[in-house]
């Protein structure tokens, strides 16, 4: 067994429609915790066979844990969502991998038998709380040259990746950006996006009440030609543009995890089984390569090789960082197994919420493709980290059998 203890399965995951983090964005006048509350409530509404009192813990991640993202999110959202008072909760932060860490942390709790079920997710309101706005980086970082000034600017780390791997050209990145938009548009048209969205009531002082039902960031019809001449905001003469970066985004996600035996007991249908996970550190200046060592470690723990993985959901903080991962594992830029529904460049990246979006998209592909046995969700993390989770498809004929490689 790759992991000790009980099997952990993902029963369901949902998310809010993602909004542009702008003064006129979908959620400009909506509290971040209210978005998370709506998402958690709908997650439980969709899974009525789980008595809410069985939930052993709620972990919600946010990068900026202040203001409407403050006050111990997992607990405050639990109370606001009307969970039984007996259900505890906490807040969690691993910057972009917050929700992923919420999942792995609570999965560990389930695996060791401390809890039977958990809600894990994340929420970010980059409109209300731009990344790092309330942070006070320790001056030692720079004074002692612990990191370069670049390390704290995500776009600059993306430029650094182009420097480190000259074969990762702007042309490749632009093509990848176009493909992300096209794949998202196709998935949306095919009905692969909307079923996992929770409609959110949004109030706007000018327009009154509305209902968020669709993602706002995507730019369908993006072309290579259209990208020409876009500024490179992170470096003069640079390669990273808005078209090859994830947009600033507001949104929330949540997943329901239970022990395999509890799923059987309650008749809950797993969408994915957690096989292994790993987080790894890299140089902060090239944080985008984080997924490479994290994935290697997760594969090793699972006793699997990259060839065993048939579906990849990798967070597109920047196109170049995905390409660095693909090159490291010898995967083609346009491999259809990678981000089949498009990625964060199109749909947006509400930092600490994104990990669960990767999972819910993987879960849908698992259901569509029972011939697939293993899939990977992975993402890079600011200040030089990567996180990876390997999942098994319960629809696969060999599901839960011993892995014979």
């Amino acid at each position, binding site marked *: 067994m790759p992991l000790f203890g009980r099997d952990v399965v993902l029963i369901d995951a949902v998310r809010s429609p993602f909004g542009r983090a702008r003064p006129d964005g979908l959620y400009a006048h909506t509290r971040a915790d209210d978005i998370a509350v709506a998402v958690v409530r709908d997650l439980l509404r969709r899974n009525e066979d789980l008595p809410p009192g069985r939930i052993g813990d709620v972990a919600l991640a946010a990068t900026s844990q202040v203001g409407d993202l403050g006050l111990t999110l997992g607990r405050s959202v639990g109370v606001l969502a*009307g969970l039984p008072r007996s259900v505890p909760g906490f807040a969690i932060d691993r910057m972009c991998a917050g929700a992923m860490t919420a999942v792995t942390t609570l999965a560990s709790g389930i695996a060791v038998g401390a809890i039977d079920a958990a809600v894990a997710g994340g929420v970010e309101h980059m409109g209300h709380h731009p990344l790092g706005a309330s942070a006070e980086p320790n001056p030692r970082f720079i004074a002692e040259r612990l990191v370069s000034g670049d390390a704290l600017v995500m776009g600059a780390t993306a430029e650094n990746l182009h420097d480190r791997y000259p074969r990762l050209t702007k042309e490749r990145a632009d093509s990848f950006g176009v493909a992300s938009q096209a794949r998202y548009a196709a998935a949306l048209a095919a009905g692969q996006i909307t079923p996992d969205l929770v409609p*959110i*009531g949004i109030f706007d*002082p000018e*327009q*009154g009440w509305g209902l968020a039902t669709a993602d706002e960031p995507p730019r369908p019809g993006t072309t290579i030609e259209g990208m020409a001449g876009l500024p490179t905001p992170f470096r003069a003469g640079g390669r990273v543009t808005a078209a090859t970066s994830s947009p600033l985004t507001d949104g929330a996600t949540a997943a329901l995890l239970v022990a395999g035996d509890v799923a059987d007991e309650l008749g809950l249908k797993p969408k994915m089984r957690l096989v292994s996970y790993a987080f790894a550190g890299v140089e902060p200046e090239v944080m985008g390569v984080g997924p490479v060592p994290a994935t290697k470690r997760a594969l090793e723990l699972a006793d699997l090789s990259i060839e065993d993985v048939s579906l990849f959901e990798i967070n597109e903080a920047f196109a170049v960082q995905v390409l660095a991962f693909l090159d490291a594992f010898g995967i083609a830029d346009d491999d259809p197994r990678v981000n089949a529904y498009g990625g964060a460049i199109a749909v947006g990246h509400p930092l600490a919420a994104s990990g669960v979006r990767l999972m819910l998209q993987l879960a849908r592909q698992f259901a569509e493709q029972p011939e697939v046995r293993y899939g990977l969700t992975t993402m890079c993390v600011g200040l030089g980290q990567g996180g990876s989770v390997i999942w098994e498809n319960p629809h696969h004929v060999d599901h839960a059998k011993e892995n014979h490689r």
Partner: protein
Amino acid sequence: MSERVTRAVVRDVPLEDLGTLALITLDNGEDFTRPNTLGAGGMESLRAALDTVAARAERREIVGVGVTGKPFHFAAGADLHAAVGITTPEQARAIAEAGHDTYRLLTELGVPSFAYVGGVALGGGLELALSCTYRTVASSVRNLGLPEVFLGLIPGWGGTYLLPHLIGVEQALGVIVANAMRNNRQLEASEAAELGVVDVVLEPADFLAESLRWTARVLRGEVTPNRPEPLDAQTWRATVETARSAVDARLHGAAPAAYRALDLIALAADGDKDASFAAENDALTELILSPEFKAGVYAFDLTSRRAKKPVGAPPADQARPVRLVGVVGAGLMASQLALLFARRMRVPVIMRDLDDARAQKGLSFVHAEVERLAKQNRIGADEANRLRALVTVTTELSDFADCDLVIEAVFEKLEVKKSVFAELETVLGAETVLATNTSALSVTEMAADLAHPERVVGLHFFNPVSQMPLVEVVRAQKTDDAAYATAFAVARACGKSAIAVADAPGFVVNRLLVRLFGEVLGSLEDGTPVSVADAALRPLGLPMGPFQLLQLVGPAVAMHVLDTLREELGERYPSSPGMARMVEGNVPFVTFEGRPSAASPVDISIGQYFGSRADGQGQTADELLVRVRDALAEEVRMMLAEKVVGEAADIDLGMILGAGWPFHLGGITPYLTRTGAL
């Protein structure tokens, strides 16, 4: 006051796979402390929005229309201040018709309409919801109702027709008439759903999104809200007549609004919407111009605004903190005060009486009351424990040493109270506020011989302390700002409304009430028959007649106050040999079993005790009414001349909150003015 316009903005929302719903949001652009209201500008904005969506409905561009409010508010009804400024029938009719013409667009849309009531929905706001085909409500909403009759109007934007047809005539009578007359009782979401006023209660956390989901289910035919079978017209009208006798027993025709509402609800039995709406227009036109409505809005402003910011109180920041309260005495009033301080101010309270037995009796009362509150689920077990721990008793004067406020509630005798204060000064710091709960004695005299008379105030709570909302805060001659501000802070912390009064006999409420008693008893002594005196004041529509009130106060207590006021104010507070004999013989004014109430009938045979000054037949009912009005007007004039209060508004506020005098009188001075007495 210019209108704070509630804008109606329309935004399209996708309704699953069904199409588009046009969602109208009402928003006055203010925060949650300022409810949406519908004045002329607001109504115009709503009408424009509805015109747009009606046209789109006709073109089949939308599958439904939703109406909702800003967060925490749907709409609190018409703009009262605009309505009260109206002077011509044309203007009044325009208000009535604007509502009907606008709401009618909703009832005649080509598509179903839905009200999503996420907050306060009162009066014309609730009628807007009633004009929709379906209604959802958030479970957190506590203010649903039709307060029009309470204010002197009728629900005239469709309410008297739509509500009985929606929920049944008996239930509608309850909401429109009975609740209004029960001091404007409002409905919580769950009650409204039980009555059928709303179709479904949804949790507030994702209220709008869930309301839209419910809407989709209704449109798909998956949900069909229950609607009662309509009664036949004859039973309907009979039900209204039953309600009419209840209204009559209370009002005796004193104010028109409830009667007009009954007429309209009876008319609704015909099922002729146009005729009903036209009759609503007529009734509103008349009532908007009525003095009772103007008095009602005046009274509403007094109780909702002036009561919260007492005129004559020093700046609140001059108040001293009160962290420990002492109560002198452990009798009934003292024990009630101790419980009030503990429960509302949440500070420790020490009650002192002369011996253990009396002290323990007071404590037992507090514990019994705490027990009762806990049994009624009005407080939890923790709160009960907290209250029991907060109230302690003692016989030691020195236990008061650390108190920030000590209030006396001992026997109503000046010498007794003076000695209590003198004794207290020997153990208290110089800044401890000394308060008296006297209802008629001079606070200035009580303080006269003290080393620190500037710390003495009057805090006149009314009985029963937990229920009566008023405190008269009395400034004696030497009271300083800090002590006076502290007294107001204490009243506020106790959850009471306060009026600032000067140190004059009987202050405001008792002075007028007892004057009224004096006139009625005097009239009996003049030979007026009891039955005539009993009926004479009915045109005022007071919550109870003078004899019932005398009985509830207690004839002995009433006589004691009457005697005290006569000593201070003179013979216009006359002695009544008849009442003296009744007190002596322990004879009640009314017949009752158990406890007297507002409905206990007067015992006509008490006439035998009166007639000491009879040199004729006494007065007719009309003459006695005029006599009482003139007496009250005289007393009001004297109180204003003596500066007992700064303005007549405080007399009115006092009578509304301290004696329960009705809104349609505006307390009392608007009524005295319009009848020419003042």
